[in-house]
């Protein structure tokens, strides 16, 4: 028997397949070079100080919030009609009945609180070391806008369980948002947020949409801009 033909059709080692795939990719885009530039670029030693990791922690927490938020949205019903409202009973269902629902909701809740702490620490660090200075002014401004987005996240998220404290806290929020003069402007802002004469089902619908569609899209976009700026500027000089 001629064994040489058998060895020709033998299944290649997975490593050979992988190398072939990488070569195929490299002919179309410099992937290997990109990986090298991502991994082996050098970082100053002073960036090892613990306070330089707050921004990374914020990033990890935002990813965690996005993941747990998607899981929560599988069961949450943004409907505020009636007492108790479906929104309220769906949160109760998540908390008490859904397998590990309490854990996902708890992680989303505590993650949000931790996120605020880490954002403030990150901002305090950037201020303290003067990292907002030229050429990084634009990145500071992107960061401040993201801080406002995070606060908008917490304000809109607070209403979603549709219990008493959520309802009345949102009433106060919308009252304050409707203060700016002239009265027509205040009335307009209130109308936009509330979707009616009082806080009701349209308000929940709007806050849900802002919390789940608008803000995640905006913050993802701005995080991208934030990181792109960091990539261009590199880490700032030590204090």
């Amino acid at each position, binding site marked *: 028997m001629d064994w040489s033909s058998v060895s020709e059709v033998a299944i290649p080692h997975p*490593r050979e397949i*992988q190398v072939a795939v*990488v070569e195929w990719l490299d*002919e179309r*885009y*410099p*992937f*290997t070079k990109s*990986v*090298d*530039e*991502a*991994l*082996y*670029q*050098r*970082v*100053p*030693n002073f960036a090892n100080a613990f306070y330089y*990791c707050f921004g990374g922690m914020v990033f*990890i927490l935002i990813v*965690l919030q996005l993941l747990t938020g998607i899981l929560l949205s599988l069961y949450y019903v943004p409907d505020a009609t009636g*007492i*108790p409202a479906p929104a*309220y009973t769906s949160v109760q269902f998540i*908390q008490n009945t859904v397998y590990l629902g*309490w854990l996902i*909701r*708890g*992680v989303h*809740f*505590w*993650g949000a*609180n*931790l996120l605020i702490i880490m954002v403030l620490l990150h901002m*305090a660090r950037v*201020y*303290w*070391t003067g990292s907002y200075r030229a050429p990084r*002014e634009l990145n500071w401004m992107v960061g*401040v806008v993201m801080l*406002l987005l995070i*606060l908008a996240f*917490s304000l809109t998220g607070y209403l979603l369980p*549709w*219990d*008493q*404290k*959520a*309802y009345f*806290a949102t*009433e106060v929020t919308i009252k304050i948002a409707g*203060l700016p003069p002239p009265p027509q402007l205040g009335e307009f802002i209130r109308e936009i947020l509330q979707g009616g004469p*009082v806080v009701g089902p349209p308000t929940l619908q709007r806050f849900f949409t802002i919390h789940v569609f608008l803000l995640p899209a905006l913050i993802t976009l701005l995080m991208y801009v934030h*990181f*792109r700026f960091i*990539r261009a*500027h*590199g880490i700032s000089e030590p*204090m």
Partner: protein
Amino acid sequence: MDDRIIDKGGPGAATAATEIPIVEVDSHGGHVLEPEWKRLPIGPDHILYSVVVGLALFPILMGAAGHHLADDMPDEDTHPFFPDHFWPYPIIAVVMLVAVGLLAYFVQKNLQLEPSADPRAATIPRPDWYFLFLFQFIKLGPELFMAVVIPTVAGLALLVWPFIDAIAGPRVAKRLGWKGWPVPGRNIITGTGWVLFLAFIALLTLWALAGPQFCLPWFINNPVCGA
């Protein structure tokens, strides 16, 4: 690679690519990377490379790196991003995940729902802890001024702070006879200002946390109580 003879004259020949031009940039944008012999041996033939190659998305999305501080520093003052700078982050991620998981398990009372919203009920709301300072601040003056004007001005000042610092700072330094205008961490004015600002917010938060029975005399709305 492919020994078949390709008919270059047939129909559609004008659009058919017979050769793929290799995208090649020989340098790394002027950056000196960690030399290959010092890297972990996770090259294209390593089982973990498929994990590592996912990280390539990062430079693809982020574009080329600019000229960084590390590019001008001696080797002994720098370290490679992977694994030296990267390894703490997966650990931090796991520690934070465990921390919020433990909080979710042991502190469930913060997640307990009140009765379903009923507009007829009269409940005095209390905001989340990070808005308490603002809630308390509003009580200290005319509502419009404290709730809208000052927060808007403060927010805008925060937004354009780099420019305030760059324009006003050197002038103040000149007047004081300083050689330069240091960063806030080494600047008696901006540094102390920051600490006082944070202390003010902390005080307002504590005042609110002290509760509705804790009242202090004040010029307006006297006395002002916690939340």
